[in-house]
């Protein structure tokens, strides 16, 4: 599709590239300058446009993506301290506070709940399959 076929296509591409940059660089100590450089915008224009498209500021999105990645790492078996460092938080207390706020669970509680479910899946896999799929003709 030609970029001119929908309004502000060029702007959208820049903002999406900056979001993908956050997705890729979440573990680095990135700041707004890094992201605005990626998008070639002024800081103010960038924040306003990003928020109008995604409903949250780049900083809020970065925090959210770090928590999402932390959940993945916890499921993968990393310790809470390892996860904290792996997702770019400088202090364990700010990581644990944000994690609890976002998920209503501490990182340890989240991991334990996940491991408990995996254990049940392993012991009784058919518990998760609706019966109709097992007896269908």
């Amino acid at each position, binding site marked *: *599709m030609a970029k001119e*076929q*929908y*309004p*502000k*296509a060029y702007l*959208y*591409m820049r*903002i*999406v*590239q900056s*979001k*993908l940059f956050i997705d890729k660089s979440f573990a680095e100590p990135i700041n707004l300058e890094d992201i605005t450089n990626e998008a070639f915008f002024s800081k103010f224009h960038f924040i306003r446009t990003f928020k109008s*498209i*995604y*409903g949250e500021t780049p900083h809020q999105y970065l925090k959210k993506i770090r928590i999402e990645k932390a959940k993945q790492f916890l499921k993968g078996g990393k310790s809470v301290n390892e996860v904290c460092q792996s997702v770019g938080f400088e202090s364990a207390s700010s990581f644990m506070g944000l994690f609890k706020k976002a998920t209503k669970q501490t990182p340890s509680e989240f991991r334990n709940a996940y491991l408990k479910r995996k254990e049940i*899946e*392993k012991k009784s*896999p*058919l518990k*998760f*399959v*609706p019966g109709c*799929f*097992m007896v*269908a003709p």
Partner: protein
Amino acid sequence: MDLQMTHTTIYVLNQESAFDFYVNKLGFEVKTDVPLGPTLRWLTVCPKGQDLEIILMPIAEGMLFNKQSAKQMSDLVKSGTLGFGVIKCKDVYASYEELKAKGVQFKKEPRKSPFGIEAVLCDDSGNWFSLQEKT
């Protein structure tokens, strides 16, 4: 009456690449992923923040299909006949650009329609979805 849909099915040609598409490209969460024997896997995914489990059901002889119906279903999916639903997002243009950057194929680029801006994307098997803005 208190009815709630908890599971629905998308028929896929290959579970491994469907996993990559729905989890790594669309960003869905894995709900259940359990082996049910040497070749069978019960795999369900869900858009973040929703409770509906989408079963990524392989089109293969065995569960649900016999040899003939598996071939028929496989042909239908490959030919892009089957549309499986509507996916809503905050901004269709942004989602279109992001998914395109991740290699997702579109049958229809974002365009204004009587019910809003819409694009149509395809999964790795050939199933298609309407991508629309939340209202």
